[in-house]
C-alpha cells in the first residue's frame, strides 16, 4: 500500500513540475539582470515599473540583481543563465561586444530610442550604436558624514588615518583601482603595469584603514553611522541623503569617473523581441521619469530630464557642471592581459599583500603530508608493540 502511495506522490510531483514548466512556456516572461536599487519598485508612492509592464503587455518580468559588472560577466559567461535584458556599464558593454556575447538590437522595435539625448549616442563603448541603449549615467563620488568628517573631501581622505576603520571601499577591482589611479593622477584606463602596481600598493596601504569592502551594503552602513566615508555612485546619493540628512556627497572636481549603464540583450536570449519591448518601455518618458525620480540616477532621457524638479536638475551631484564633466574619465575595456593583471593585483590587495612566496603552499602541503606519514608510522609502531 505504502509503495503505491510513494509512487502516487512522486507522480503528482512530477506532474506538478512539468506543469510549472508548461505554464512557464505558455506564460510569456523575460529575465532582467540589473543592479540593486536601480528601478522604481513601487515603494514610496512611485510606479512599480515591472508590474506596470506586465499589466500593459502580459509579459512577466523576472528581475534579478547583481553587485558589479564582473559578477554579471561571470554569470553570463559561465553559461546556463538566460537573461534577456542586462544593464552593464560602459566598459563591460565593450568587453561583451568584443567577446561576441551581445545581440544586435533591432532599433525599429525601439521607437522611444529617439528620446535619448544625442549626447549619449555613439559613445566609445558602442561606437556604431548597435548593441546598447543608455539607461542611466552618473559619476563616482564620496559619501561622508557631515558630523564626523570635517576635512576637505577628495580622494586623499580615503587614505586618512584619522578615519581608520570607518572607511568603506568598493568591492570590485575596476572601481577600487580607478580611485587609486585617479588619486595618483593616472588614467583610469592605464595599461601600464608599473602604474597599476603603484595603485595596488596604495590600496594595500589603505587596507588597514578600511572597515569593509562592500557594494550595496554601503547604503546601510553609511546611513546608520557605521562608516563615515565611502566612495559610491552618485545616483545613490539621493536615497542615502533622504534617509539621513547628515550625509553629504562630493564629486572630487579635479578628477572623477563617469559611467553610463546601458540596456543590452545578451546572446542566447530566447525572447529577443520581448526584450526589445521591455527596453522600449523603459525608454518611455513616464517610465524613465519614474525610474530617475526613484533611483536618483541621472537620466540620459531628454524629456524625462526636462520634467524633473528644478532642484534635482540643478543639483551638481546628479547633473554636474562642465568643469567636473571635462575632468572626468570614462572606463574603456582593457586588454585581456591587463584585466588579468588587475584581477591578480586585486586578490593581492584583498589578501593584505602578505608575502606571496609561492613556495609557501608547497611547504604547507608537504607539512600536511608529513603529518599524515608521522601518524601512519606512529600507528604502525604501536600496532607492532
Amino acid at each position, binding site marked *: 500500500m505504502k509503495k503505491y502511495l510513494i509512487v502516487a506522490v*512522486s507522480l503528482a510531483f512530477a506532474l506538478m513540475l512539468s506543469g510549472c514548466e508548461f505554464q512557464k512556456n505558455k506564460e510569456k516572461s523575460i529575465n532582467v539582470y540589473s543592479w540593486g536599487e536601480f528601478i522604481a519598485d513601487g515603494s514610496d508612492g512611485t510606479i512599480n515599473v515591472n508590474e506596470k509592464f506586465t499589466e500593459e503587455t502580459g509579459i512577466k518580468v523576472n528581475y534579478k540583481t547583481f*553587485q558589479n559588472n564582473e559578477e554579471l560577466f561571470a554569470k553570463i559567461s559561465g553559461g546556463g543563465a538566460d537573461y534577456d535584458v542586462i544593464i552593464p556599464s560602459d566598459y563591460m558593454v565593450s568587453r561583451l561586444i568584443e567577446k561576441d556575447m551581445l545581440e544586435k538590437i533591432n532599433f525599429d522595435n525601439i521607437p522611444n530610442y529617439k528620446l535619448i539625448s544625442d549626447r549619449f549616442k555613439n559613445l566609445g563603448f558602442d561606437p556604431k550604436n548597435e548593441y546598447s541603449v543608455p539607461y542611466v549615467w552618473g559619476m563616482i563620488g564620496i559619501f561622508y558624514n557631515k558630523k564626523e568628517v570635517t576635512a576637505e573631501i577628495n580622494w586623499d581622505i580615503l587614505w586618512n588615518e584619522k578615519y581608520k576603520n570607518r572607511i568603506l571601499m568598493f568591492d570590485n577591482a575596476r572601481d577600487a583601482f580607478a580611485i587609486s589611479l585617479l588619486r595618483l593622477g593616472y588614467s583610469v584606463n592605464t595599461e601600464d603595469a608599473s602604474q597599476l602596481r603603484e595603485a595596488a600598493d596604495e590600496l594595500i596601504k589603505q587596507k588597514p584603514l578600511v572597515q569593509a569592502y562592500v557594494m550595496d551594503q554601503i547604503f546601510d552602513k553609511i546611513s546608520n553611522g557605521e562608516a563615515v566615508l565611502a566612495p559610491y555612485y552618485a545616483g545613490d546619493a539621493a536615497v542615502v541623503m533622504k534617509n539621513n540628512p547628515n550625509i553629504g556627497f562630493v564629486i572630487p572636481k579635479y578628477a572623477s569617473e563617469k559611467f553610463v549603464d546601458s540596456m543590452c540583450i545578451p546572446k542566447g536570449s530566447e525572447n529577443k523581441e520581448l526584450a526589445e519591448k521591455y527596453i522600449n518601455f523603459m525608454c518611455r518618458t513616464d517610465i524613465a521619469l519614474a525610474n530617475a525620480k526613484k533611483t536618483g540616477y541621472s537620466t540620459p532621457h531628454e524629456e524625462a530630464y526636462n520634467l524633473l524638479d528644478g532642484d534635482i536638475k540643478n543639483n551638481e551631484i546628479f547633473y554636474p557642471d562642465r568643469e567636473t564633466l571635462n575632468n572626468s574619465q570614462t572606463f574603456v575595456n582593457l586588454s585581456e592581459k591587463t584585466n588579468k593583471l588587475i584581477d591578480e593585483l586585486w586578490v593581492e590587495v584583498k589578501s593584505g599583500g602578505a608575502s606571496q612566496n609561492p613556495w609557501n603552499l608547497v611547504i604547507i602541503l608537504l607539512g600536511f603530508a608529513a603529518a599524515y606519514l608521522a601518524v601512519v608510522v606512529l600507528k604502525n609502531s604501536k600496532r607492532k608493540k
Partner: protein
Amino acid sequence: MKILNKIYMVLIFIFLYAPIFVLIAFSFNDSKSRVVWSGFTLKWYFKLFENQEILSAFYNTLIIATVSALVATILGTAAAVGISQSKKWQKKLIMNVTNLPMINPEIVTGVSLMLLFVFIYNTFGIFKPGLITLICAHTTFCLPYVILSVMPKLRQMDPHIYEAARDLGCDPLRAFMKVVIPGIMPGIITGMIMSFTMSIDDFVISYFAGGMVQTLPIAVYSMTRKIVSPEINALSSVMFIVVFVLLIVINFRQEKDRLRGAKK
C-alpha cells in the same frame, strides 16, 4: 561543581541563542534601524508575505526539498539494501564514494556540479541549470544521509525473518516489501526528514549549481547584500518558529516510539 556546570551550560546556550533572539526582537521594531528600538509593529510580517521574490523562492525551496528528499530516499534505501548484500570489497568501494560528498568541502561539491551542468548544457543543450539540476544536486548530497540512516537498521534486522517469509511462499519483491521495508521504516523516515531539512537549509551548493533559480537561502543571501530591510528579521523569526515546532513534533514522536519500544 554542579552549579558551575549549570552556569556554563546556560552561558553556552545564551551564546547560541542570543543572535536568534536579537533577530526576532527586531522583527517587531517599528523603524528600519537594527539597533534602536522605536515601537512595536507587525508590518514587516505583512510585507514579507507580500514579497513576491521571497514567496517564489520559498515555493522553489519546497519543491526542490520535497522532490529531492523523495528521490534520495527511494534511491538511497534501494542502495542501502544492495550494499548490505554486496561483497566486502564492493561494499568498501561504494561506501567510499558515498562518503565523498560528505567529506568534500561543500564549496568544491558546488563548484564541481556547476562545471558538470554547464558542461552538459553547453555541449548537448539539455539540462539548463535550473530547477531540475538543483533537484539532482540536492539529491546527490542527501543520498549519503539516507544510506547512513538506513544501513544501521538493516544491520539490526534479523535476516531470518526475510528467509521465513520466502519459505512461507512470498516472492522476493513481496517479501522485501512486507518484511524488510517495515523493519527499516524508522531509518527511512529519519533519512527522509534529514534530507528534507538539509535541502531546505542548503546555500553553498545551490548558489553554485542553481543557475537562475532562487531558493530561500539564496534570496536571503541577496537580501543581506542590499539595503537591509527588517523583512529579513521577520523571515528568520518565521523560519525559527517553524523549525522549533517541527523538531518538537519529531522529538515527541521519537519519545513515543521509545516508550512503545520500552513497553514491548
